[in-house]
């Protein structure tokens, strides 16, 4: 991997960088859409690349079960299997073991789980996870980590943090011995729950291994913790992580979360939110989400966003037409998915341009004014951005501030 920071925001910690991988250059910060089962839901790879997206994510856990490593090896890796010629990232499978499998037991050796095929106890070790990811062949691979819910407290959190570090060492060993370090890049995952002390220790240990890892992820978040805690952990980690390594915040996909993370110095994020919400008929816009299933949209003869370059909006698909299709025809999901992926890409593309031009703080202010407008700014965003020198409320005496997550939704009146 060649990683180069090309611009830094003079106010916040945001930066623009170029990450050159085996399948091309991806400019950061960026959002990575999730192709869990080797397909962005409903779209072809040609459609996805035409949206201006060149880094997507596959899930190791799912691909290992289906189609299985043998099929992927025969096909020449996941890129060829799914016809994707651009960059690809795979997670380690650790998160799904915990989130999808209630019988998973973590031992020092690895994660012991019940095979969804035959119910037999199966062990996923760090070595195994890396070798599966080698067969998949993604440009960025993730270490196996010991994931605990972000709501867990007590000694288990510390245990998981130290084990994640030990597992990182085993992943590094396997990866370096494989001879794939030139084409595949291993990322470490910072754990430590919501405890600043543990996070600190974890980051320190992982920085010690800097010359053997290509980048860092901040894991163990986006699991229902308070947003106020979320941003503080992100900031703490991003502040300490090496400047010359990409930083990846796992499971972040709401527009406001993404921009806060970028301001705190995060370069990459992934989430199923934009594609999943599209299937439920929710279109994302710079003025907040639109729930196209609501009857108030049934006769609206304008596109989701008439400034949007996505195939759905630029071909003039009206909200009324989408109202007629969403959740009833797969085409409705395709159209809104295309739009939402372009929305995420525009959000991040505009951030890149703003950072390059030195106008990122203004971009943040404009975004929050348009997106939250009269609904009130989330307090945690205001605090998070204040911590990096941007006061969203500056000159906005009449703007309300709301506590909690503050996420906005389109509701029927």
């Amino acid at each position, binding site marked *: 991997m060649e990683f180069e920071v*090309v611009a830094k925001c003079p106010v916040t910690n945001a930066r623009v960088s*170029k990450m050159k991988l085996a399948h*091309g250059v991806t*400019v950061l910060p960026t959002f990575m859409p999730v192709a869990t*089962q*080797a*397909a*962005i*839901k*409903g779209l*072809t790879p*040609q*459609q996805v*690349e*035409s*949206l*201006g997206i060149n880094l997507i994510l596959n899930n190791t856990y*799912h691909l290992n*079960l*289906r*189609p299985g490593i*043998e*099929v992927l090896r*025969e*096909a020449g890796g996941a890129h*060829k*299997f*799914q*016809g994707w010629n651009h960059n690809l990232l795979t997670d380690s499978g650790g998160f799904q073991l915990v989130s999808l499998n209630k019988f998973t037991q973590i031992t020092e050796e690895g994660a012991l789980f019940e095979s*969804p*095929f*035959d*119910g037999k106890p199966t062990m996923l070790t760090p070595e195994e996870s890396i070798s599966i990811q080698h067969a998949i062949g993604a440009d960025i691979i993730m270490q196996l980590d010991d994931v605990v819910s972000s709501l867990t407290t007590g000694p288990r959190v510390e245990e998981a943090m130290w084990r994640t570090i030990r597992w990182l060492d085993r992943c590094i060993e396997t990866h370096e011995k494989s001879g794939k370090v030139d084409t595949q890049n291993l990322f470490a995952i910072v754990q430590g729950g919501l405890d600043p002390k543990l996070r600190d220790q974890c980051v320190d240990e992982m920085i010690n291994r800097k010359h053997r890892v290509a980048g860092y992820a901040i894991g163990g978040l986006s699991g229902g913790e308070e947003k106020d805690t979320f941003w503080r952990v992100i900031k703490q980690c991003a502040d300490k992580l090496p400047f010359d390594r990409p930083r990846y915040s796992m499971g972040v996909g709401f527009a406001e979360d993404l921009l806060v993370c970028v301001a705190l110095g995060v370069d990459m994020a992934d989430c199923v939110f934009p594609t999943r919400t599209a299937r439920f008929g929710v279109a994302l816009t710079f003025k907040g989400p639109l729930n196209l299933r609501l009857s108030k949209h*049934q*006769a609206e*003869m304008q596109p989701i966003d008439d400034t949007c370059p996505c*195939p*759905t909006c630029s*071909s*003039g*698909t009206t909200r*009324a*037409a989408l*109202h*007629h*299709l969403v959740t009833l*025809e*797969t*085409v409705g999901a*395709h*159209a809104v998915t*295309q739009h939402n992926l*372009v929305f995420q*890409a*525009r959000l*991040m*593309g*505009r951030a*890149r*341009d703003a950072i390059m031009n030195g106008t990122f703080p203004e971009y943040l202010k404009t975004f929050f004014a348009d997106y939250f407008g009269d609904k009130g700014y989330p307090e945690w965003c205001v605090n998070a951005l204040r911590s990096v020198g941007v006061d969203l409320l500056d000159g906005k005496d009449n703007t309300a501030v709301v506590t909690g997550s503050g996420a906005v939704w389109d509701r029927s009146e």
Partner: protein
Amino acid sequence: MSTLNFTIQTAEPLSQFTPRLGRLSLHRHEGPPAQDILTPALITTTSRGIVPHLSRDNVVATSPIAWTQVHFETFLEQTPPVLALHKGSHPLHTFLGYEPEKHILALSLRDPHDGQEMPPNTKEYVTCRCVRGVRRVSPASWRSLVLACKPDVVTALADTPFTPLPHSQKRITKSLERSTAWLADLLKPSQETVPTEHPAVLVQMAGGNEVRARKAFAEGLVERLYGKDQELVSPLQTLDEGIAGYVFDLVPLQLSLAPVAAARVEETVSSSAHERLLKASLAPLPITKPRIVHSARSPHTLLRLIQDIGIDLFDAHFAQRAADIGIALDFTFPAPYSTQTEEQHLALLPRKRENRTDLGHNLFAATYAHDHSCLAACFAGAASFPSISQLSSEFPVCLCGACSPRSYPSWIQHSALDTLPTDVGTFQKPFTRSYIHHLLHTHEMSSHTLLAMHNLTVMEAFLAGVRGVLSKVDGAKLFTEEVTRFHEVYDEHMVVFEEAKVEWASVERARGKGRLQREKPGNTTPLADSTAMSARVSEKGAL
């Protein structure tokens, strides 16, 4: 007024029921003409106004999509129907995302594949179905809806009963009277002083399974009108003068012929009966107008209808349905000659049963998990050739988005730093059977998208093959030979469809959709009982 010109291009002397080549040209009062269509040609079917599984960009990229059939009834769930609210010169095209230059939009009230029982029609209205239940549409409201939507072509309302059989003589007589009156109502010249877009009108050939009734209805169309009847449609002298083509929906025909066996249509049993009824309708009519058949069950049926009756347009319902249930079509017309060895094919041919080859691959089947070849053995992908001009004439190429995926000519740029790749617009490697097998089992929508593009393209290649043979010297004779050979090579019973339906239904109905639970060895649910299942999944219309 849109006019649909049909010119028959067969050189040989033409009789009433011989195969023919034709060219359809649509001229619109406003806006561009649509691209001409060579017949025999394909009609793309829709659901809720869109081609199932194909987003707008994929519809445009799929060249066989030209004549597209939209049924209005699904839009009746809202009052007023949203379709009728859109303004502009081509509201139907714009609202649904079709291109006037490329797509001829034909509108009918009812989905021609829907054979479910319905409440009776009356003198005042036709009953139809939307997701909120049964709706009534009167001839007057149909006329105003059509004038508001401005389709290119419209089928007049017909009184086709979907009530329990048998239908009495009196009922059939009423059906003829109403269908004729409703046709006349649609043909009435518009009262507005400003000329508006008035679509070309097709007529559904009424008369059910009665040869005499069908004949009487057709004769009524060409009968010279007098008095009030003529005044109504003036300046037309006969109803037929205002008609652009004749439509046959096989679903109600099949129901009226074999109500009991309707769930499993015994095609060969009824094909001669179909033929007799279709001929009875066409005999009194001029031969120069396009003839349209909906819901033909198989390519074999298409060939028979072309050969024995001279049908010009067919919908691709069976091929599109195949994409729903995980089948990749793999056949050509003329059928491959046996001189082609297995090695000359790029991939394994479909399964053979009793010496006849399946029409396609059931990609749900476990055998495809490790099959990394392209979808069809009969077609190569464009990426196998150095340039588009060098596409092989010896080996057919499938230019669909699955066999010849092509990166888009332009990509969206999101920031000044984004570098766009230089290989835009190039052909990529074909998607493989193993990939689509994987997508089907994981319940990924993309599987159906790729299959829908492929199956429509295979159907268009099939009809291009038909036109190719018919255009040769001595075409009709050669065609007869090739039809016989096609029947010898390909399985008409379509067992592969039944097999795929069972697997499709088990994925579709399994809780959690793509769940692995279903794949545990020995997990045979009652759903796997193929006979019970095929009865249950027999889609609407049973064809």
